[in-house]
């Protein structure tokens, strides 16, 4: 960082003191909003998760301790949603990593039409997820869709669990691969060109240059991209909402929580699920940061 190194610990000059003050003041509004809009709701969410609070029985509100957690954690719908979410996350992030790497190479190395390639890949990234999801939905609807038209007569892929999840993954991969590719491309940009050239002079093939020089140097960027996308995939909502709305056991944890909260008006159960999702996300982040040594962006190097 380009900040001036602190001269001495004990004696803060007047200038340093006023710099501290200014720094705190400048950060205060942003920090305040972020903490107010997330901090208090999280606490409140935990409180609601400890109550029987169902808008359909407003008179029966009561503290019930951890019983909502017992209900959710022994419920088959919850676990189905959990595994579906996990499957979607693992498969889509894996595909995205491979596709994203290819796309990043194409964007980074292109000798013709580089601007064109970089422009078109931003369209899936920027398009409203719901708009794209409707496109996929209609494409796979028998009678309407051009993709469904290629399938044998009478197949309705969105009404079968396995094929519906495959389509959800397809929609998710299409939309988010460009983001993955951009993050990976940023990682490629920091690898010095000379290293690759040196490798190729030593007789390394293109593949060897990629696998033994580029990939290891890109590892921090890859891990950051994986972390971002894994956490993002875990909260998948929009695509499933439009494509199946969770029917045929294709609900993700976010969809299930939404159904219990907004559809079922059961604030206790809905908030219990919210807290559990938060805990899951925290576990994933910790696994990445501690297990893989992912440098959290912003942690400074």
């Amino acid at each position: 960082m380009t900040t001036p190194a602190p001269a001495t610990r004990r004696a803060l000059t007047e200038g340093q003191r006023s710099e501290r003050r200014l720094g705190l003041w400048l950060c205060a509004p942003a920090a305040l909003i972020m903490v107010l809009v997330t901090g208090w709701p999280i606490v409140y969410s935990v409180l609601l998760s400890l109550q029987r609070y169902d808008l359909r029985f407003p008179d029966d509100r009561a503290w019930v301790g951890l019983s909502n957690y017992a209900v959710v954690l022994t419920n088959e719908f919850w676990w189905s949603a959990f595994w579906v979410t996990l499957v979607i996350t693992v498969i889509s992030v894996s595909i995205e990593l491979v596709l994203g790497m290819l796309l990043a190479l194409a964007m980074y190395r292109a000798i013709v039409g580089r601007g064109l390639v970089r422009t078109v890949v931003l369209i899936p990234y920027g398009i409203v997820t719901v708009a794209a999801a409707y496109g996929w939905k209609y494409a796979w609807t028998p009678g309407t869709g051009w993709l469904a038209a290629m399938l044998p007569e009478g197949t309705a892929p969105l009404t079968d669990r396995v094929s519906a999840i495959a389509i959800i993954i397809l929609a998710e991969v299409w939309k988010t691969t460009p983001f993955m590719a951009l993050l990976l491309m940023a990682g490629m940009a920091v690898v010095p060109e000379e290293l690759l050239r040196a490798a190729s002079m030593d007789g390394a093939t293109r593949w060897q240059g990629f696998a033994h020089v580029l990939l290891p140097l890109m590892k921090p960027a890859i891990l950051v991209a994986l972390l971002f996308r894994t956490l993002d995939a875990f909260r998948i909502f929009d695509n499933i909402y439009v494509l199946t709305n969770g029917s045929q056991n294709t609900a993700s944890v976010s969809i299930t929580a939404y159904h219990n909260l907004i559809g079922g008006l059961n604030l206790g159960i809905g908030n219990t699920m919210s807290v559990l999702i938060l805990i899951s996300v925290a576990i994933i982040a910790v696994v990445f940061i501690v297990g893989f040594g992912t440098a959290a962006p912003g942690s400074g190097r």
Partner: protein
Amino acid sequence: MMERPDRKRVTSWVVINTVVVLYAMIPVLWIASLSFKDPSTFTDGSFIPRKWTLDNYAGIFENDDFVRGLVNSIGIGLISTFVAIVFGTMAAYAIARLTFPGKRLLIGVSLLIAMFPQISLVSPLFQIERALGLFNTWPGLILPYITFALPLTIYTLSAFFREIPWELEKAAKMDGATPFQAFWQVIVPLAAPGMVTTAILAFIFCWNDFLFAISLTSSNAARTAPATISFFTGSTQFEDPTGSISAAAVVITIPIVIFVLFFQRRIVAGLTSGAVKG
């Protein structure tokens, strides 16, 4: 660059580029094609419309809910972006330029929020906003949007700010400029491109949101366009709103296409800078 591109390599790159363009464009062209199809030909399954019409577009602009949804989307998106940029700029400046306690904490908190599962916020906010009277209002959506746009703006902007040659400011002051003049005439022009980029990214985020929009609104008073689309109904029991949904999907995609066409370099720079330099 280093080697002269020979014919074979150019050809293979043309092929690769074509694949990438098809990958990105086919789903978009399909929804556009649906939006131009005459309702009698929805069920032909053809990728290209056999009978063209603009009726689907005429229909959605006669639909008050959709027009209100667009107004809500634009208004809520712009206000959220504006506030996030103002506060984000202040914080990012401090992070890039100043030494103060709690800097790490702020970076950590915003990282946490960037990764936060939105649904975990929707559940308590649904109840809190109902109690505060914020449910189904513009501020009810603007607040969470600012919150989720802030980490993005802080990251991207602080990366941009670190690149600015701040010595120029000192030089201007030595040449007799007041601190304000130095800031306004030297620093702002240098910082503006980064801020525009960041504003676009933040706006795309707000424009894209769906979960908050359907959970924290109940009518067209605050419902944004993506949520409005998902509530389209056909005019009769037997008619699917396929045409209207497709046309509306195309309409809300247009701003994105415009941003991408005009600001491609900046968006790429913005998305990659935060990730690497962070």
